[in-house]
């Protein structure tokens, strides 16, 4: 692959992305526009995350890529291969061993530590987009800290359904200032963002936005005093490792209503099974 630079992107582009990243870290939760490039994977496949990863990756990094929590899903395999091919960095499936984790739709169950960077693939960075489709208008609301629209949406859900009906990409308030879309992770994962020792970087390629949650930042899921934020997960235990606190995937085993529940985080599941076998 001598035709392409280390980690595919040219150094000028990486510098531009890094500048956006620095600004994003300086203003937690604020969406920084950046000159997103055409990537050799389609928009929606993680072009934002890939550009962020490409820009921060060094030769000594160890990369983990997950999609839906799993290392073995097709898109995760594809992106991991892409970086193995264009950057030649070491890859791993172990959360604890990775220095950079690129993810789509999950935060690993194993707590992240200082020095780790997790890169999110973001389809829709604008948390207000379902309420205000114009990006120009939404940007003004962010500038004014005017998030009444979102509170009204939550209130209406509670008034009509008795609960907030958002189950993923649940909006959060970052550093008490910016409303942020945590990307379509299940609301179950939201609390992992709060005061996390790791650096969280969010890349949206098609929408050309980068944002960040630096280490030890307050991240609150929006709620009301009398209707506190609630986690949702299937009530079962993992059929493979028995975990009762991890997020589960539902697997259809037949067409008679048969179901099986297993950890969505494949690394975590494996680790639990290893522990059980050792005990």
């Amino acid at each position, binding site marked *: 692959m001598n035709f392409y630079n280390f980690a595919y992107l040219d150094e000028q582009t990486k510098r531009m992305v890094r500048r956006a990243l620095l600004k994003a870290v300086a203003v937690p939760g604020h969406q920084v526009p950046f000159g997103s490039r055409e*990537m*050799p*994977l*389609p928009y929606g*496949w993680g072009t934002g995350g890939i550009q962020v990863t490409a820009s921060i990756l060094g030769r000594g990094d160890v990369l983990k890529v997950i999609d*839906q929590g*799993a290392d073995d*899903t*097709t*898109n995760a*395999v*594809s992106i991991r291969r*892409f970086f193995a*091919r264009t950057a030649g960095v070491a890859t791993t499936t172990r959360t604890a061993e990775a220095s950079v984790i690129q993810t789509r739709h999950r935060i690993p169950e194993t707590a992240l530590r200082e020095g780790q960077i997790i890169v999110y693939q973001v*389809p*829709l960075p*604008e948390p207000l*987009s*379902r*309420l*205000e*489709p114009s990006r120009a208008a939404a940007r003004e609301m962010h500038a004014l800290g005017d998030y009444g629209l979102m509170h009204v949406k939550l209130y209406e859900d509670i008034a*009509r*359904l008795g609960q907030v*009906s958002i189950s993923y990409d649940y909006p959060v308030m970052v550093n008490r200032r910016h409303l942020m879309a945590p990307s379509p992770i299940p609301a179950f994962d939201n609390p992992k963002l709060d005061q996390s020792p790791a650096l969280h970087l969010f890349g949206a390629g098609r929408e050309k936005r980068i944002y960040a949650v630096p280490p030890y930042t307050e991240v609150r899921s929006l709620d009301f005093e009398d209707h506190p934020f609630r986690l949702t997960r299937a009530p079962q235990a993992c059929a493979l490792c028995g975990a009762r606190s991890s997020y589960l*995937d*539902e*697997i*259809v*085993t*037949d*067409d*008679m*209503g048969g179901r099986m529940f297993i950890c*969505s985080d494949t690394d975590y599941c494996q680790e639990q099974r290893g522990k059980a076998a050792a005990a």
Partner: protein
Amino acid sequence: MAYVAVKGGERAIDAAHAWLAEERRGDPDVPEIAIAQIGEQLGRAVDRVMAEASCYDPELAALAIKQAQGDLIEAAFLLRAYRTTLPRFAAARPIDTDAMRIRRRISAIYKDLPGGQVLGPTYDYTHRLLDFRLAEGAPAANDPPVASAPQNLVEEDAAAGRMKRVSAILAHEGLIEEDGASDIPSGDLTREPLAFPAGRDLRLQALARGDEGFLLALGYSTQRGWGGTHPFVGEIRVGEVAIEIEPPELGFPIEIGDVTVTECQMVNQFKGSKAVPPQFTRGYGLCFGHGERKAMAMALVDRAMRAEELGEEVTAPAQTIEFVLSHCDNIEATGFVEHLKLPHYVDFQSELETIRRLRREAEAFAAQDQRKAAE
């Protein structure tokens, strides 16, 4: 030289057509492309032309593509103009996609499910790096060795039985709305003019032959907040299904052939209304050939157009049935846009006269005002 000389338009047209034929053939030193090559090697183009022409005939679609120099809307137009001359001798029974001979079947909502995930031939996980080996006629980087095509694997599965659609799995728990009844005769907008409000049968027909690019943009707009539908890809399947007709004199159905289709079932969040409990709703996409982008966009727009039926607020273009159906047909659209090239001398002449008169009057008023101001 003028495109309509006062006389001699006929000669100009003949000369233009001769030039076009020459341009179509290109450099005669380069071998001429054969219909079979188009059919075999430009299959996605053939599929798109068949879908937008609503005429399933890969050979004729390939011919149309050759004749249109690869202009796919022009090719769909050629094929539609042929389709319209065909006699109708029967209406097929509804196709049974449960019984599809599956080439590709994926669900984005379950990691695993009965029948499994069948990746099939897809560009989804290719890296978009130009493969210069193809330019030299060498096998592409990802070409499998000839013997390892996993054909039999899929066919064994399919032979083992029908592959239930994901919607049936969700229906088992009552979490998704029921499918519409299939025994109601559907309308045909190629025989009866479209009137509004249009039923879902006609809407789906219009979308199935609608322009892929237009539907793609509309579907995309719903994802960005202009009429959001909270979609999940319940399932996409691609493969061959049998076409059956039931001649009245026989009294039982007979198979008359196979067609390749792509089916997409979107599963959409729905919070319920006064009359309907919270449940998943459906958006449906189906098109001839292998056309996942088309089927998915169709399913998004189908669901968006059901806003009014489901008691949702209609605010965006994709939710406005009349807007979508009136503009999704690319043969109609290209005709009306491109007709602006035709002579409009007469109309323009009357416009010229009108604008001159208006200017004269405006000047007269201005002069009058000036006089008044001076007095």
